[in-house]
């Protein structure tokens, strides 16, 4: 009995066979450098503004670079890689610079780009420039990230890189450039499908090869890493043998109605397809073939098919579609042996009202997703038009807003006010809780969900989001851990725009009248100022809630494993179970900053 599980209509990240976690218990993953700038530590922290200001706790699990004059080697992996997915956490110290080289040749820039509004190829997440002779308009080729998704120094950031090695013919001549298939910084896609015509500056060699080591730049400044995960995807992808097909014409509801009949059409083809005959209204197809598997192991098979269908792989029925209304993409994981694996797909067109569609993909333990369908059989297309909203000047914009945590919706904020800025730092204010519930960098809003067709009244942030507390901002001693809303005592009064269109929110509760304004400091972070008329001595303002709140220095706190800073004078921490709250008394004027 094979292990099968379903994931319906979702692309969830799965830890598949073939993924390697680099433990950093020691430095054995890397080649010895002969220098001491690369070290292991248990934890590391740094200052927001002081250059090279790393302090570390002894131990393992975190890789840190503390370069000094004459002691600043680059770090090479011991093994070499071709097609690879790699992801890791990193932390920059202030004004620091490093880089992560695929195959020692193609650099993804790591830099303290905090506060940069319009990033270039030299900023964090950029494909660093390379010298290229004879290129019109300049001699350097690089690729800037779509947005600046970079966080402040001293915070853990996350990078995911999907890299495709250059390809060569049997004579060693390059036939396809290396590619950054995708780079995600802090969850935001910042690069996609970037062709690299050759090595970038500072490569270990100008000669391109099928494999090469990872190289981390160590000679420019202090930087830390942890949680390396890599998938070596260098195996030969699975492929299909020629397909024997049969087509039956008729209005069938079950496969028994036609399987015993003589097919109306038979033939061979090399791609899976529903589109085998010119009559396409009432039909059933039977497709028989073999999948060639180069390496035994878990394979993820995805399919998106309209109609009623049955899939048999390696002799077992792995999918029978009883509900013909459900045409969503399905995903199954199968343990497949090496060699030829028989497959049969039976597809019945049962409804006239849906367009025909057959898409089929396979992803192996050591190769990337490969499609087996013909070009016309599955059309990647969207019926929606995209509608984006910029904030080239400060912009206040209301919508429903879904708060997400770990890919899941935790709340729909219904009286949400989104505030965007040309500095590309944006926040969502929840009028029902007087709270800043999320902040993000990059572009302002995707309003497609609200404005295309009927719409659902909601918009989505267009950048990496930091979700903050979704609960009441104003509490008292007795309910300091409350996970509720402000409730009916709150009177929302609206907002007023200043001469730069920056809003001050006004609300009152229990006789206290609040004026609440958030501004951007140095293009880097938010500073929120709350003025209170008739302050109520029982009111406490919760400036942060989380599982982990650590006081770092005077008035500065690190929240949730160095995800962001809160800077607040006179704040206190209280803990209940695994919830921590940072709060200040609601005096006539309260000011605090959210730094990330």
């Amino acid at each position, binding site marked *: 009995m094979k292990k099968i599980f379903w994931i319906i209509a979702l692309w969830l990240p799965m830890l598949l066979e073939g993924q390697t976690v680099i433990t950093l218990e020691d430095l054995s993953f890397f080649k010895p450098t002969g220098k001491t700038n690369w070290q292991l530590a248990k934890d590391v922290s740094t200052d927001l503004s002081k250059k090279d200001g790393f302090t570390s706790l002894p131990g393992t699990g975190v890789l840190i670079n503390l370069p000094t004059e004459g002691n600043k080697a680059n770090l090479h992996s011991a093994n070499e890689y071709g097609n690879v997915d790699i992801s890791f956490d990193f932390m920059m110290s202030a004004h620091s610079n490093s880089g992560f080289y695929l195959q020692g040749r193609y650099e993804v820039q790591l830099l303290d780009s905090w506060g940069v509004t319009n990033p270039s190829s030299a900023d964090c997440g950029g494909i660093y420039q390379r010298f290229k002779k004879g290129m019109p308009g300049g001699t350097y080729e690089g690729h800037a990230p779509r947005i600046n998704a970079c966080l402040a120094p001293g915070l853990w950031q996350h990078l995911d890189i999907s890299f495709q090695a250059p390809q060569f013919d049997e004579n060693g001549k390059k036939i396809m450039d290396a590619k950054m298939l995708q780079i995600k910084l802090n969850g935001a896609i910042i690069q996609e499908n970037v062709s690299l015509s050759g090595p970038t500056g500072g490569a270990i060699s100008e000669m391109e090869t099928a494999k090469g080591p990872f190289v981390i730049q160590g000679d420019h400044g202090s930087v830390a890493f942890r949680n390396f995960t890599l998938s070596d995807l260098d195996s030969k992808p699975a492929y299909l043998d020629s397909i024997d097909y049969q087509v039956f014409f008729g209005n069938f509801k079950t496969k028994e109605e036609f399987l015993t009949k003589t097919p109306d059409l038979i033939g061979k083809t090399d791609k899976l397809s529903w589109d085998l005959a010119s009559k396409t*209204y009432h039909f059933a197809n039977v497709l028989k073939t073999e999948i060639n598997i180069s390496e035994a192991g878990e394979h993820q098979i995805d399919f998106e098919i309209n109609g009623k269908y049955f899939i048999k792989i390696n002799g077992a029925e792995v999918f029978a579609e009883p509900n013909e*209304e459900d045409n969503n993409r399905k995903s199954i994981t199968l343990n497949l042996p090496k060699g030829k694996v028989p497959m049969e797909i039976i597809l019945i067109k049962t*409804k*006239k*009202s849906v367009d025909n569609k057959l898409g089929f993909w396979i992803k192996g333990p050591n190769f990337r997703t490969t499609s087996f369908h013909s070009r016309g059989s599955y059309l990647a297309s969207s*019926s929606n038009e995209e509608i984006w909203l910029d904030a080239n000047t400060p*912009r*206040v*914009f*209301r*919508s*429903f807003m879904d708060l997400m945590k770990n890919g899941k919706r935790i709340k*729909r*904020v*219904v*009286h949400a*006010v989104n505030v965007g800025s040309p500095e590309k730092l944006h926040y969502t204010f929840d*009028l*029902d809780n007087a709270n800043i519930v999320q902040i993000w960098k990059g572009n302002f809003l995707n309003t497609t969900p*609200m*404005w*295309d*067709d*009927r*719409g*659902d*009244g*909601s918009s989505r942030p267009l950048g990496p989001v930091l979700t903050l507390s979704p609960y009441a901002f104003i509490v008292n001693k007795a309910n300091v851990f409350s996970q509720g809303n402000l409730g009916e005592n709150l009177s*929302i*009064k*609206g*907002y*007023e*725009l*200043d*001469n730069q269109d920056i809003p001050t929110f006004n609300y009152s509760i229990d006789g206290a009248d609040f004026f609440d304004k958030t501004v951007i400091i140095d293009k880097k972070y938010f500073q929120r100022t709350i003025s209170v008329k008739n302050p109520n001595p029982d009111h406490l303002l919760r400036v942060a809630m989380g599982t982990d709140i650590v006081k770092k220095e005077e008035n500065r706190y690190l929240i949730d494993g160095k995800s962001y800073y809160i800077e607040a004078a006179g704040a206190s921490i209280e803990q209940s179970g695994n919830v921590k709250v940072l709060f200040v008394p609601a005096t006539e004027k309260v000011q605090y900053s959210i730094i990330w």
Partner: protein
Amino acid sequence: MKNILFLILFSFSSLLIAQEPTENDYYKIAKIAIPEGIVLEAGGIAKMVNGDIAISTRRGDVYIIENPYSNKPYFRKFASGLHEILGLAIKDGVIYCAQRGELTRLLDKNGDGKADRYETVYSWPISGHYHEYSYGPKIGPDGSFYVTANVAFGNSDWWAGKSLVPWRGWTMKISPEGKMEPFAAGMRSPCGIGMFEGEFFYGDNQGDWQGSGFISHVEKGDFLGHPASLVWADKPNSPVTMRKDEIFTKVDPRDNPKIKPEFIDKEALPNTTIFDMRKAMPGKGIKSPAVWLPHGVLGVSTSEIITDETAGAFGPFSGQLFVGDQGMSKIARVYLEKVNGQYQGAAFDFRSGFRSGVLRMAWGNDQSLFVGGTNRGWGSIGNEAFGLERLIFTGKMPFEMKTVKAMPDGFEITFTLPVNKKLAADVNNYDVSSFTYKYHPVYGSPMINQGENPVRGAIVSEDGLKVRIVVDALREGYIHAIVPEGVLSQNENYPLLHKTAYYTLNAIPSGDKANITLVTPKSKAERERIDAGKLVNTPDNQTKEAAPKGSAKPSSSSNSSSVISDKEAMALLTKHTCIACHKEKERAVGPSYAEIAKRKYTVAEMEALIIAPKPENWPDFATPMAPMGHVPKADIRKLAAWINTRK
């Protein structure tokens, strides 16, 4: 097709008429140029004190259009960033609007021509469901604001209206100081709102528990029909005494999250109507519609209700109501009267042909009517995404039924122009029939309990402006379709511009019956035989004549497999209101005939789908098709065959 002369024969008099006048001869639609880049999906329109027009959009902007009466209007952006504004009103020179979640006042404090204070007058609960639209405000005589709130829908039972948080499906009355009073319940999709004689009126459209579109007078504590809202009726500040359980004693709610309820002719409980409910449970505030707007005829999605306050400058309908329709991109007209203290009256077609779905209307300074349109995925016959137009009265008098009043034994029709008295006195020139809609949890209702109402007498007034008809078999709670088809105007011999009045007869007034000898009209079949006589130049006959000799097909009645002519098809499509939602080649409220033809349905399949539509076959369309079981099967078969030739 120029200058075709229609020869119409009536009993002994034959009259020659030039091409029939159209709506456009009397009321002109003038487009207002919208600057490129502005997506003006209208949600609210209001006239500023100086005659400028304020208009709000789905995209959250409020524009003030300066000089909107000229051919160079200027659009000034006054406010932005608001949440899908679906209404706008001016009070003391200040703009108020309903966002999805609150009533907002917009103030320009620093005088730079744009709003800088966005003041929350009242913030209401909302769950965040897409269907939770909020409409308004309308301003009452006491200065308070009326706002209405759509219901949400279930998750697995996506067809069932739900009130997930307080006051969804209610009318809220909000004081200028921001105090909210729940006012009335039972709304489903209350986009249609308006004031008449200082009273709040609301319109809804076909949906679950709503057989068809209508407008109703809304008083405090009323229940308008949709039960979802009653989940909050027990709250201490609720004035509504109606309760869900009481409805379900008369109607099976068929509340099964797995099975979408479909129309059943005979359920275990006897068929009932909202009017029957009102009669059965007096004192519960149940309101049946003041005036039904038959679905697919006068509209599919009721919008703005506006009173003609122009004292004649907009034509002969001063004091009457105009009711917009989003899906059919048109405006209906309503004459209201009070019988036994309750509003009832007649609805008529008025003007169609707007470029987008008609959502909001406001009077301009010059007594023209500003009409703001939006399509926004709801679908509309005028299939532009948005539009702003003005409707202008030319000053020429259309030949219309101006009013229809209920009489103890029939109706009194007032015409805008004197009638040909001889024709108007002949009962055979009138056709009256009646029907109603079922009250049930199903989306919409077919017309039920259809009946004929023979016209037994017609008394024409001396001046030719009034006819009193005596009608048999009047039924309270029924819509009476009154069609003086054969009545022509005295001077120009024109037929009526709009031939049907739909009178919702909630109460038959008491009083004297007409002092007249009753006659028996010819049967309908007899009249139709006359109409189909050889001398009559019907559209069908013309087609036959126009066709080259030898190619003429046998008539459809003698050979059911042949396809009817386009003209015949168009006549049937119009008669059965198919054209309310479908166009030949373009997408409208529903798919085009060409798109349907591509599905290659057999005639039998299509017949089944017309009688019991399957909206799930057309997931891209917002408005489900109404079951058309009342259409004669022979006609359905003719139309199905014709549609299949459209691809």
